[in-house]
């Protein structure tokens, strides 16, 4: 970032020429995935499948050649744009995205759907581009690209409901993009630069940008798109969707707003409120969606807590979340693929025929619930520790409650209802091999990170000497989990637990789904009525004017008919008289 002064020229279509020697042969980190996406669009199925796996690897290899401080800028449309800016934060996210792309790619191997595979690659590429965007305009480009590419994963379901859902999703994200664009414009006007750096809340630009990022980040009240769209996607699409969009938003928050206090409270709210929805929700992928918001709440909170442990925690948790949430979504995807159902009320007892999937799912559940030795444990606690350390007791308590809630709905509810509970009688096949491989890798990573967190810590933006495995922490977490499990069991046995019902829970997306279209419709109707009223009025006036004119000027009218000569003579005399009068008056004066 210090290298802002030293710009390298970036020429389209050529290899990036960078500052430091070893990078000269490298492409822009987003390009491998994007190019692979474009190629895949035209490629036969086999090559496409190869690309799904190879492109992330190639991208990762390419990525590893970059080091912090690399900067590429180009002049485009009269603006000096920073296409690439490498630092630890961006690097970590980029690495994460490649990992996610690889996992999802493997997971997608069984499918032949060109649309999903291409969209997935492009989507991942866009996310990588977004985190390396050095200025707001480039960020906007990738931001919107994320939206466009991802929506195909929803549309790929090819059902009317998902089509509509995708359209809503796209609308929300384009709104976010437009806000980002407006924010960029304001930023440029206020500060004379488009460089995307940390900013203080206060300027108009910063608020607009926060709103833009907040939409993608699922801030409370802006979150509905996620629970609306993710469950609507294909089994494969949700895996992709879960990995990139929100994480890019977290990245943007960390980049622009670290240490902004309001984020702590926003994050707290985000961690809290989805729990209730998650509990009553039937669609298991939607449950995961709410749980996702809850997890992002931790990250947002961490970003709000600021430099050091807070941001580190947020980033680390984002990293882990992608993996374990991906794992959970993958397992649910496998269930969906094999049974065609996803509602908790329709599933159950699948462990009998899908034992591997069930096991892997439980690894994910353990991770998200932050069992010790699983990945969630090593990152979530960072945020909570920092909150306590900074003296936000309320926040700490709230996050504690949220952790319990997570365990409750994600850690227990998901595996329980899907694989155990009452036997639904379904006897599906075990998930395809490629899915199991992908889940296996994810599970392995969850455990690996949980056991050896230092590898992850080394990648974090701030130097850290955090140690998750001290006694207090482990004990406290285990107590929490135990009592949470106890509560679940009690509730289930006493029958107080809300039953799994077929229903669509509308929360604030009532506005998006019902109110907004209705308002538009009413507006259009009222406007139309006024418009046609005015037109009709005008037509009436015109009709009157026309009939008067016709009455006067038509061949039958006074001014349109030939006059008798006498009339003309009369007028001649009148005119003469008039002229005489005028001359008389004129000369008399």
């Amino acid at each position, binding site marked *: 970032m210090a290298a802002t002064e030293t710009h390298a020229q970036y020429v389209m279509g050529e290899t990036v020429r960078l500052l430091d020697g070893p990078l000269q042969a490298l492409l822009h980190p987003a390009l491998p995935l994007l190019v692979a996406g474009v190629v895949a669009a035209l490629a036969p199925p086999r090559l496409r499948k190869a690309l799904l796996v190879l492109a992330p690897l190639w991208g990762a290899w390419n990525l590893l050649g970059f080091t912090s401080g690399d900067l590429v800028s180009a002049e485009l449309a009269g603006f000096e744009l920073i296409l690439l800016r490498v630092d630890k934060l961006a690097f970590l996210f980029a690495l994460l995205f490649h990992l996610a792309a690889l996992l999802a790619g493997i997971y997608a191997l069984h499918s032949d759907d060109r649309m999903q595979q291409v969209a997935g690659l492009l989507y991942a590429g866009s996310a990588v581009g977004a985190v390396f965007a050095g200025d707001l305009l480039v960020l906007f*480009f990738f931001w919107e690209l994320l939206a466009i590419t991802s929506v195909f994963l929803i549309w790929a379901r090819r*059902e009317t409901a998902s089509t509509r859902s995708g359209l809503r999703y796209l*609308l929300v994200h384009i709104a976010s993009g437009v806000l980002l*664009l407006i924010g*960029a*414009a304001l930023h440029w006007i206020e500060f004379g630069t488009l460089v995307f750096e940390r900013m203080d809340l206060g300027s108009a630009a910063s608020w607009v940008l926060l709103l833009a990022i907040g939409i993608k980040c699922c801030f409370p009240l802006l979150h509905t798109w996620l629970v609306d769209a993710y469950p609507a996607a294909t089994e494969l699409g949700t895996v992709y969707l879960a990995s990139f969009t929100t994480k890019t938003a977290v990245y943007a928050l960390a980049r622009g707003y670290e240490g902004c206090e309001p984020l702590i409270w926003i994050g707290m709210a985000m961690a809290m409120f989805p729990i209730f929805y998650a509990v009553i929700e039937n669609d298991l992928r939607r449950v995961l969606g709410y749980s996702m918001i809850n997890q992002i709440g931790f990250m947002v909170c961490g970003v709000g807590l600021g430099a050091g442990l807070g941001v580190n925690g947020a980033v680390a948790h984002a990293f882990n979340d992608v993996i374990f949430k991906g794992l959970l979504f993958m397992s649910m995807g496998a269930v969906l693929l094999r049974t065609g159902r996803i509602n908790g009320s329709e599933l159950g007892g699948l462990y009998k025929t899908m034992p591997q999937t069930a096991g892997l799912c439980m690894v994910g559940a353990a991770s998200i619930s932050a069992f010790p030795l699983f990945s969630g444990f090593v990152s979530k606690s960072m945020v909570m520790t920092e909150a306590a350390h900074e003296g936000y007791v309320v926040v700490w308590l709230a996050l504690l409650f949220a952790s319990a809630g997570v365990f409750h709905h994600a850690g227990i509810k998901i595996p329980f209802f899907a694989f155990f509970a009452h036997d639904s009688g379904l006897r599906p096949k075990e998930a395809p091999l490629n899915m199991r491989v992908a889940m296996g890798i994810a599970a392995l990573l969850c455990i690996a990170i949980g056991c050896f967190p230092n590898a992850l810590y080394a990648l974090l933006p701030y130097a850290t000497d955090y140690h998750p495995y001290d006694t207090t922490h482990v004990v406290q977490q285990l107590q929490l989990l135990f009592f949470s499990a106890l509560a679940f069991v009690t509730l289930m046995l006493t029958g107080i637990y809300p039953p799994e019902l077929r229903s669509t829970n509308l929360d604030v997306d009532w506005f998006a789904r019902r109110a907004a279209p209705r308002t538009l419709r009413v507006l259009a109707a009222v*406007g139309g009525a006024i418009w046609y009223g005015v037109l009709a009025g005008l037509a009436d006036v015109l009709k009157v004017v026309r009939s008067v004119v016709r009455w006067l000027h038509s061949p039958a009218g006074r001014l349109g008919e030939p006059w008798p000569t006498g009339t003309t003579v009369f007028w001649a005399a009148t005119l003469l008289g008039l002229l005489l009068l005028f001359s008389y008056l004129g000369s008399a004066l």
Partner: protein
Amino acid sequence: MSAVGTLLAELFAEPGSGWIAAGLLLPVGAALLVALLGWVARSANLRDGATVVVGVASAATVLRLWGPVSSGERPRWLLWSFAPGGHLEFVVEPLGLVFATVASVLWVVTSVYAFGYMRGHHEEHQTRFFCCFAIAIGAAIGVAFAGNLLTLFLFYELLTFSTFPLVTHHQTTAARRAGRVYFGILLSTSVGLFLLAIVWTWWLTGTTDFRPGGILAGTSPGVLVALLLLYGYGIGKAALMPAHLWLPAAMVAPTPVSALLHAVAVVKAGVFSVLKVVTMIFGVDTLRGAMDRVAWGDVLIWIGCFTVLSASIVALRQDNLKRRLAYSTIGQLAYIVLGAAVASQIAAQGAALHIVTHAVGKITLFFCAGAIYVGAHKTEISTMRGIGWRMPFTMGAFFVGSLSIIGLPPLAGAWSKWGLILGASQAGEWLVVATLAASSLLSVGYLLPVVLQAFAPRQGGAAGGEDAGVQEAPLLCVVPLCLTALLCVVLFFWPTPFTDLLSGFAGGPP
């Protein structure tokens, strides 16, 4: 012959003027050639070949002017004295050159498309069609290169007249009614208001020349705002509500006409004129000052915003694809009026860029609408379910064009939206910023459902009957629309020629 030689020598003696003449006269020559080959020689192939050849030549001459103009020259060609207060004079400046480039380059593409469409559709009177087409393009180039208001007005009217036979091509009762609306609105606004505004301007300043920085400095703010309104509505081609009615009416025309003339030449000529008047008659700084001092100074902005939003909402409810696109055009082109009306240099540049980007995007959409008509014989969106699977190229291009219109990267529309938002923010016109944002969303709402409808999953069993007879449009239709879709992409990555040329065009005198 020697007289011709002398004339030519004179023309090319002054740098640039010969190229201006060539750019203007080639379309006229094309019209003559088309008439000759079509009516006298009666050879459709020769005729269409001539159209393309001359079109390419015309585009080449216009492009030839890029060199001198971007190096700061302003080639001019004084043709003759037209009336006191103005001469028939042409001056090539960046804005005009951009518009001329758009018109002449897209003419070639559209011609090719039109061959496919008209033949695929067995339309009658093709010679008349291509003849008027060429004249219309010549008129558009004349508007682009006009060196003063009178010249602009002359070609503006020529454009109206030459497109009338195109709009009413089918000569049916519907066409006649539409022609009345088209002609009535365009002519009455231009004669009743535009001309009055021109005369008023001339009276105030003693000239009608376009000059960088404008000529109206020092005029009282109230008069300026009144004049601005007169121009805004006088240039009826800009389709500000409620003078927009002609545009949906003009949709009775064959689709290539709708594509070129109502996405590129005619409406564009309108908004181009507004933009040019604001930048080179008012001067953005003069206008800005006036708007700040008058209570109702922002009135054109309000009208523009209203037009954008209401046109978009109306577009949402149209089932006829071309009508929907027409309303979209009204809304999108009000962007340019807004860009002019906020009176900031950046916004003006954004607006100028929007002329290019919208042209490429919208022509793609219209091409697609025509291709659907040729390939599937469908005009209503509700009947287009699933046709995308049979017409992948057409609907793919439609999707690309839609995204460009919405203003999403990596498509050209993003740049102009950025410029407009930047300019509006700079001028502190939050209403405009909000409108642009809302319009982006609304445009998603009215464009993408078409794509979704086209790619809707085929319903089992009965689906076979639904899209039976649907096939990809003829090659002559598909290639141009893919080309323009491609252009949308190219212009995103390579907007620099346009942005460089346009940088600072709205500024004061050097």
